[in-house]
């Protein structure tokens, strides 16, 4: 098993910079998710780890080995493509056996390993069938099995669940996690879905526009986002970011949120870091609000989404558009003006210009 070191990695395609200054250490046996919207450079990074494209700058090392010049067939990585790239002219068995055959594994052993993997992925009844025309859910497992059977030290998955229907996605998330635990591979997983990253990864690397923004455990990145982008990208819905101006009041800083009113005083460590009169984003997560009869931010309800376990209430508009999550019994109606109380310890402040978080962790 192997650790992956990405050192100052960068890639340009002509005049377009797909990736710049990517520094990331992935420990042996760790499951890291590269999370970001389309075009953020996550797939480019992974393609370079696999050896499909060469870096324009920087280096990639597997353990001590510099991978520059090492062709993809000799990197020992497993790769699951977004569209699976199943050999549709072969049967399920032949697909699973392909890598073993190509590397000269003896027939008896090959057969045993194919059957074991098929068992693990519930593909046994389909072994003799041609792989063309099988459903997406089956092809997905076949793609994973075909790579996993080679027992690669490093497993790369490029948005493997994006073509799969919602219900099956949950099942596959669990199976992938077990696969990684079972084989203890170093796994790099590219996705745009923060839920996948949160549930599966040991650590998340959040990327946007070719830059690595933040790395950390899911909960760390969730609780202490380093920028407005990360704050808004994680969480369903993402963190609320209301624009305002900091005001000094009785030794503490409060944020003037315009129509919504004045925020409660910021906790001590934030009051110390936030300068007065600064243009900031006042950030709080949707689950950290409470409806109160007393003092709080005053916002009109514009939309109510009741989706089973939770209710998402949309409030305010434009700069003070906010979403809050409550359990499904909450009695709100469209048009009502409500008062929101937010626990100060859950408040985060960001510089409105740079988007960077102000003040350290709690």
């Amino acid at each position, binding site marked *: 098993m192997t650790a992956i070191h990405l050192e100052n990695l960068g890639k340009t395609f002509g005049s377009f910079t797909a990736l710049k200054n990517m520094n990331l250490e992935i420990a042996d046996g760790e499951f890291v998710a590269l999370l970001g*919207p389309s075009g953020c450079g996550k797939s480019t990074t992974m393609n370079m780890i696999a050896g499909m494209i060469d870096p324009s700058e920087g280096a990639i090392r597997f353990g001590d080995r510099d991978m520059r010049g090492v062709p993809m067939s000799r990197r020992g990585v497993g790769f699951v493509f977004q569209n699976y790239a199943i050999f549709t002219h072969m049967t399920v068995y032949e697909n699973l056996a392909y890598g073993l055959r190509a590397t000269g594994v003896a027939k008896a052993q090959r057969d045993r390993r194919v059957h074991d993997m098929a068992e693990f992925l519930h593909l046994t009844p389909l072994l003799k069938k041609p792989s063309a025309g099988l459903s997406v859910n089956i092809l997905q497992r076949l793609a994973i099995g075909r790579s996993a059977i080679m027992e690669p030290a490093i497993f790369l998955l490029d948005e493997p669940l994006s073509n799969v229907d919602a*219900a099956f996605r949950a099942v596959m998330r669990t199976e992938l996690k077990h696969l990684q635990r079972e084989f203890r591979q170093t796994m790099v997983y590219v996705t745009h879905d923060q839920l996948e990253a949160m549930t599966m990864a040991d650590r998340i690397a959040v990327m946007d526009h070719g830059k690595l923004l933040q790395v950390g455990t899911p909960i760390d990145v969730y*609780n202490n986002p380093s920028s407005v982008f990360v704050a808004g990208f994680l969480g369903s819905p*993402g963190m609320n970011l209301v624009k305002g101006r900091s005001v000094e009041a009785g030794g503490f800083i409060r944020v003037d949120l315009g129509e919504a009113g004045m925020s409660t005083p910021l906790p001590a460590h934030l009051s110390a870091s936030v300068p007065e009169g600064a243009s900031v984003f006042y950030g709080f997560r949707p*689950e950290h609000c409470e409806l109160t009869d007393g003092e709080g931010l005053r916002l009109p309800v514009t*939309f109510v989404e*009741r989706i089973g376990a939770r209710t998402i209430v*949309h409030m305010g508009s434009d700069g003070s558009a906010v979403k809050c999550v409550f359990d499904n019994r909450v009695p709100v109606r469209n048009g009502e003006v409500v008062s929101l109380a937010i626990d100060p310890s859950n408040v985060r402040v960001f510089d409105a210009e740079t988007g960077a978080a102000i003040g350290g962790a709690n």
Partner: protein
Amino acid sequence: MASIAFKNVTKRFGDTVAVDNISFEIADNEFFCLFGPPLSGKTTILKLILGLERPDEGEVLIDGKPVNHVSPARRNVAMVFQNLALFPHMTAEENVRFPLVERKMSSDEIAPRVADVVEKLHIGHILHKSPAQLSGGERQRVAIARALVRDPVAYLMDDPISALDARLREETRVELKRIQHELGRTLVYVTHDQEEAMSVADRIAVLENGVIRQVGAPSDIYDNPNSAYVAGMLGAPAMNLIDLDPDRPSALGGALPLEGITVPAGATKIGIRPEDLTVGYDGGGAGKPVEVYEVEPLGGVTIVTLQSEDITLRAMVRGQPQIRPSSEVSLSVANGQACFFNGQGEALSA
């Protein structure tokens, strides 16, 4: 008068029965959602409404009139395709005008209709652009405008947002709901994403293998599913289905106490949603302790997976509680929120 109605419609493809004796009504101006797993008949129903398929049995009615033998072009139902299918070589405005130009309407007749739809969908400022120059959301609105310019009785959408990024999906479904509300037109919407269905629909039809299992408002179906199947289809993680203990008011061999909950006669299983399964991790619970198998912190909530007597249960706990895998917790049912099912999977009321 119902906008669209199906009366005992059956449709077969060779040996497969795609749609099996289904009946339902969609009211005027309703946002109606067809929800179910792949191959449950949702797309076939859309095609039957459009007229791309004819029923083998039963009647399809639009605006109260049977349309089994009316060709798609004459049914006045519009479709917005998953890939939007905007004509790339035309501007947004030309795209929107296209259906009317096709019908050989004069410019005088076309202009006011186009203006009306453009205003409703707020696309006046992008009419001159070509689809390639528009954002995803703008393209969607142009596609909807094109569908609506014919003033159809209803418009249909087949899984329009599943291909989008997760974040964009959340925003677009709210947008679609708003648009439908403003336009006041019947919308039949197909999806396999349960959260999406619950968010957008006025009413949902839950399908399984070509049969409608239940129709109703999202919160109704969620709170009162008529079967274990429907209960399992809405809500993620899915509802926990647990066998009741034969001799006492509990489940899981005493791990889940059911004091104070009335168990209806004939019930063999209890269904508890993850958000209603309370996890006590500070010790001192009434039931037998259960082992924690997995803890998935999602930020706003934490999914705790438990193993007991060979079954896997999931609880959704708010916030970020400090629970460790392999530790032991006690379970209880919050506020008596439970469903009961008999041996055939039918829901029973207490």
